[in-house]
């Protein structure tokens, strides 16, 4: 691992909503080309962490270093241009805009829209191509998730943040989405994946961190985590 380049280093990150501390001094790192997953239950601070990386929330203290840059002092709208894009929790597609308009907005930080990227996304998600003139709000939940991921890819990110892509989807769709994430990884994009679906996430990821009420309680390679009795009991539904 140490020979690889560290893409992002998060150190002692602390985020609070008023007096409520949502993320309590967490540290983790992401190497170039990896899929890293952050696991945890509702309210563990996973979404807060991603929103802080993207600049939507301000860190109370600590640092997020991306390459040579300190992200905590950069406004949200400039972070996409640095190569970090996010498919947020709950999809957040622009419902009254068409699928294609949504995708094009994904490339807002670019001067021009790269048609090769657009056709690659249509290749990853043929459903989006079929429905490119349809309003995003009329898509099914799974299709909206595809659109959210596709939209995030339009900025040609080096690092993709995915916030619970499997949330609320039928198992067969979850499988499709995770297959696609694998393809995205193979194309060279580093992925930081936040999930409640620990089993699916660990199968895909290289490494994982487990977050519990704002603190990292376990970390390791996916294999280590899958084999850990604590993780098995708490997140994989196996008895000790």
């Amino acid at each position, binding site marked *: 691992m140490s020979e690889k380049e560290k893409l992002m280093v998060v150190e002692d990150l602390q985020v609070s909503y008023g007096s409520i501390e949502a993320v309590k001094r967490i540290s983790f790192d992401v190497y170039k080309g990896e899929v890293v997953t952050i696991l945890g239950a509702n309210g563990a601070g996973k979404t807060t962490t991603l929103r802080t990386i993207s600049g939507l929330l301000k860190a109370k203290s600590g640092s997020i270093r991306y390459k040579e840059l300190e992200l905590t002092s950069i406004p*949200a709208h400039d972070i996409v241009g640095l190569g970090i894009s996010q498919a947020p929790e709950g999809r*957040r597609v*622009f*419902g009254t805009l068409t699928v294609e308009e949504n995708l094009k*907005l994904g490339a807002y930080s670019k001067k021009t829209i790269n048609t090769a990227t657009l056709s690659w996304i249509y290749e990853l998600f043929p459903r989006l191509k079929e429905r490119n003139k349809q*309003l995003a*709000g009329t898509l099914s*939940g799974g299709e909206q998730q595809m659109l959210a991921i596709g939209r*995030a890819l339009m900025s040609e990110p080096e690092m993709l943040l995915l916030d619970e892509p499997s949330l*609320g989807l039928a198992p067969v769709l979850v499988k499709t989405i995770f297959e696609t994430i694998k393809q995205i990884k193979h194309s060279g994009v580093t992925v930081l994946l936040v999930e409640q679906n620990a089993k699916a996430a660990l199968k895909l990821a290289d490494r994982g961190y487990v977050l519990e009420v704002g603190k990292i309680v376990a970390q390791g390679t996916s294999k280590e985590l899958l084999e850990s009795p604590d993780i098995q009991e708490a997140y994989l539904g196996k008895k000790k």
Partner: protein
Amino acid sequence: MDIFLQQLVNGLTIGSIYALVALGYTMVYGVLKLINFAHGDLVALSAYIGLVIMMQLIGVVSSKAVIIIAVFIFTAIIISIFGVLLERMAYRPLRKAPRLSAVVSALGASLLIENGIMLIWGPMPKIFPASIVPNINWNVGGVYISLMQLLVLVISLILMIILYFFVNQTKLGAAMRASAIDQDAARLMGINVDKIIVTTFIIGSSLGSVGGLFIGMYYRGIYFNMGWIYGLNAFVAAIIGGIGNIPGAMLGGMLLGVFNAFISGYLSSSWALALTYVLLIVIMIFRPTGILGERVAEKV
């Protein structure tokens, strides 16, 4: 039939003015979910500022067309600056405050501008010079249409078409629509939402300034508190069309103008305002989101 057509022409003229003003309400509502109550007063202010510029230019510039064009451009620039200052000082500091605080701030800004106009120009009405637009009338099959009416109709239509294409066909327009739907998601696309909000105020104020100048040039008499009544009518137009919806504001403005003109033509102009609210109530009962304000069901 003659009354019908004549009132239709008159109604479309005033309706165009309502539509231009209504666009300012609806666009700001779209991105901020705030009724900018000071918008009507910016419209009134633009008539006063336009009149000042016009009086300065008359006598210096001989071409009336040049005077009119200059008045429109300079007034739009000045009112845009006022609009941007309004956003910066009255609304931006309250962006994260409860909705009611911003509404109170809007009402305060409205009173400030209205009374500012009175302090500077006095409480008596001001009169726009006659014949700045030549008093030409055409008789088209018994219906009279003046050059001024034609100008109002054509310029409003052109501005609305430009706005429609800007919002629907350009990158900035798409960013504006995205910011209206979900500001955080828009930020994740790299959209600087603050800049979009400022742009919205510039466009809304410019269109409002054109509306205010039309009021001055068409009716000629302007008074310091006219922003209230024109603003209210335009606001009702925006609601009838579906607040937040740009074609809705255009349609609502036209509809309200024609409705008012028919009431004035067939009943009495003193009924116009009362029946405007009857119309509003009826539309709200049958279509609470306004005529075009239909929301696409969003799946969760």
